[in-house]
């Protein structure tokens, strides 16, 4: 309803302005009511008002052209550069990560190899040490046994010597003792030869 009434009002004015078309001062357009705006368009539906086309085309070419240039020279390389930089960075980081991973793998392999080597070495050293200890122990035992045997035989020889000596001295002691006993008993000195013969007769043979 409003629409139709508005158009009804504008109809006469529209004819007026159509008679004198052209550039209406900007101030006038703004101060007037919407009725006047309709009038300015000559009652034509605004988007189909061909009188506005040259201005719109010109300004579209200017603004869109400027935007296109800005895009091509500045904005697209700028955003694209950021994206590319990030892409490169990620790829670089991935490379670095895989490099570190392979390094870590290599390190683990080296470690395990060295560990195995060290184990083998330790085993060998242990074996050698055990062998050496065994040999040494055997040698020591042999040496001690030899020494002991020597000491034993020496002791035996000494015992034999002492025994012989002792037996050798038994006769003398017996003679002295017998001489002293005779002297005490009969108060007369028996001759040494007598005593000696008597002791020898009383003593067991071979003593």
């Amino acid at each position, binding site marked *: 309803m*409003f*629409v139709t009434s*508005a158009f009804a009002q504008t109809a006469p004015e529209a004819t007026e302005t159509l008679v004198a078309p052209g*550039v*209406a*001062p*900007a101030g006038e*357009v*703004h101060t007037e*009511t*919407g*009725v006047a*705006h*309709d009038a*300015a*368009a000559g009652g034509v*539906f*605004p*988007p*189909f*008002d061909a*009188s*506005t*086309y*040259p*201005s*719109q*085309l*010109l*300004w*579209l*070419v*200017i*603004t*869109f052209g*400027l*935007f*296109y240039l*800005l*895009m*091509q020279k*500045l*904005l*697209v390389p*700028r*955003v*694209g*550069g*950021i*994206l590319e*930089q*990030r892409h490169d*960075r990620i790829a670089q980081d991935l490379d670095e990560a895989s490099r570190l991973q392979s390094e870590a793998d290599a390190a683990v392999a080296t470690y395990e190899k060295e560990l195995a080597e060290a184990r083998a070495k330790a085993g060998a050293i242990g074996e050698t040490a055990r062998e050496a200890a065994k040999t040494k122990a055997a040698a020591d035992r042999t040496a001690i046994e030899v020494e002991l045997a020597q000491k034993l035989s020496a002791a035996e020889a000494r015992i034999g010597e002492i025994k012989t000596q002792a037996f050798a001295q038994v006769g003398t002691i017996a003679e002295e003792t017998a001489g002293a006993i005779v002297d005490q008993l009969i108060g007369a000195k028996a001759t040494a030869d007598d005593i000696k013969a008597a002791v020898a007769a009383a003593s067991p043979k071979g003593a």
Partner: protein
Amino acid sequence: MANDPTHQFQIQKIIPIEIGGMDFSFTNASLFMVATVASAAGFLYFATSQRGLIPGRAQSVAEMSYEFIAGMLREGAGNAGMKFFPMVFTLFMFILTANLLGMFPYFFTVTSQIIVTFALSVFVVGTVVVYGFYKHGIHFLSVFAPSGVPKVLLPLVSSIEIISFLSRPISLSVRLFANMLAGHITLKVFSGFVASMGALGALGVGGAILPLLMTVAMTGLEFLVAFLQAYVFAVLTCMYLNDAVHGGH
């Protein structure tokens, strides 16, 4: 005045300029073209000023729009089509920003003017034709003769192809223009109902709730349309460029 739904499309001169009898005035349409370019370029410029390896919010949006169009173009026209990336990205950002700016009350919608959308479509189709002939020479005409069509049917199929090719600038421009125009008129009409019914007293205020709800819902829908039309324009541009880059199908 407030209820005239076409008033918002009115071109008003701000600085009158006349060259050779032609009216090249700086109008509200021109002003909003400048505003569109300034906000789109300004956004892309300042959003990426940090050049962060880890993007902030604004930089994410800028990168997302870049990759969105880059993916669309690569999918539509292949890697050889990537040389048109600045063009498609410019078109998309220009239309999207113009559409979104138009959603502000009292703002002029640049893309609601058929001459603007038509000029943009002619730019697209013109690029396709010029590059197509430059790249493929006369063989570019094979886009009108699909391979594998029987010779008997060829004249028919070719004429259909030619008509469809010629209607591209029209369909491309009218789609965007009509969507923006119709959406804005509908919004205006429904909000006009709210105002005029509200003036009728208590009953009218109660009755105005329905158109008010409608206006709110339409506003949401219009934001979707604003994005969708920019997207559709960009997708179709990519498809048309595919013809230019790869010749016949």
